[in-house]
């Protein structure tokens, strides 16, 4: 029941932790202090509300989208276009393609896009203070190796599936043969029905003749 609140708390803690690692990243968001923005992910209508202050960003996941005047700016964006709203030059194209709708103060979104472009995230900067340089390097190398293996496995499965589909396709009867077969079965049914009707008539004639 509290999964939304749990997710929101994790997102808030994670985001603020990452931003606090580099003071420049925090400064990038200072222009947004005192503003609020709601992102509604389409087509699922999943709302994410962001409230900015000098020292933190609070993330809320309300049960349903907030009314437009509850926040300074509401952005409804298709999931597929979410990454593109970081680039303000693409906003018009996204609106024309019906992938983006903006209500309220557009400058809030522009400031957020600008701040997002200045943020650089690396796992090294996050993990080194916690685990130390040596262990972080080992961990990331291990992760890279496993990820490469996983990627290879996925590619191998993709190739097998593609080949399988091409080969199996040959075994499938063409549509015209299936249609002919259906016609023949229908004709056979008609003949059987006629034969049964004749048999019944002969039986009736025999009973009438008293044989």
């Amino acid at each position: 029941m509290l999964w939304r609140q749990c997710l929101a708390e994790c997102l808030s803690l994670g985001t603020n932790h990452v931003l606090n690692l580099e003071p420049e990243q925090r400064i990038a968001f200072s222009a947004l202090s005192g503003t609020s923005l709601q992102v509604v992910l389409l087509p699922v209508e999943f709302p994410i509300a962001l409230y900015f202050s000098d020292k933190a960003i609070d993330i809320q996941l309300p049960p349903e989208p907030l009314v437009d005047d509850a926040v300074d700016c509401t952005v409804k964006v298709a999931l597929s276009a979410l990454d593109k709203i970081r680039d303000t030059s693409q906003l018009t194209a996204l609106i024309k393609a019906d992938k983006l709708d903006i209500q309220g103060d557009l400058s809030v979104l522009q400031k957020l896009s600008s701040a997002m472009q200045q943020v650089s995230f690396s796992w090294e900067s996050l993990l080194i203070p916690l685990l130390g340089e040596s262990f972080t390097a080992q961990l990331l190398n291990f992760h890279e190796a496993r990820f490469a293996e996983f990627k290879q496995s996925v590619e191998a499965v993709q190739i097998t599936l593609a080949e399988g589909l091409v080969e199996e396709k040959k075994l499938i009867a063409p549509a015209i043969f299936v249609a002919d077969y259906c016609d023949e079965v229908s004709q056979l049914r008609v003949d059987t029905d006629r034969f049964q009707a004749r048999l019944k008539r002969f039986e009736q004639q025999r009973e009438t003749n008293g044989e």
Partner: protein
Amino acid sequence: MSQDTTSNSDVTDGKTHFGFQTVAAEQKEAMVAKVFDSVAAKYDIMNDVMSLGIHRLWKRYTIDMAGARKGMQVLDLAGGTGDLTAKFSRIVGPTGKVVLSDINPSMLEVGKDKLRDQGLVQNIEYVEANAEDLPFADDQFDIVTMAFGLRNVTNKDNALASIYRVLKPGGRLLVLEFSKPIHSGLAKVYDAYSFHLLPKMGELVANDAESYQYLAESIRMHPDQETLAQMMREAGFDSVDYTNLSGGIVALHKGFKF
């Protein structure tokens, strides 16, 4: 300040409860103040330890149900160290206002320091006030919240009436408070935790077993979900309902003033 009342009131013949003890009604306020003076400095740490951090989720749920928006006037009553105030302050923005109110100056001071450290100064006002006799104008607030505070109030009926007075028509009250677990199995585990483990944790972390013994007892003495809902209706609130959280260990009651 405290008055004798009838019906659901927890003050009878000038007596009330302080945990499992029966005390003179006028004594309770000072006794509760002593408890919170004692725990104020370590209140946040203890909340995290005692609830395994789940109190943050209960408070987030309260915020989600509050329907706050920019420009609103919010009263965070018995707001303690300001967890709800911090979130409301960001939501209502510079055009709104949040009043953090607590009867206990020690708690209010801890809350003030914490919020200032978070850079939240612009739209927050701090008021030392008794929930039973709020020093605010009629119809002033869009939202009043009271998280884990009502059970410490000497006369809850007076507090609910006072809250009703300061709410704007259309405004809502949210009471987040410990309640009665809805499953008997959970109730047994919870009792064992409250009466045996909690005081020990209080002693270990805050060096104060007595205050946390009071916490466990006061939770047990607090009205259950239905009783509190009825008390809110009697105070004049409409559309009163409640949501059990974590199996009823905590309940969020909501009521409107129309």
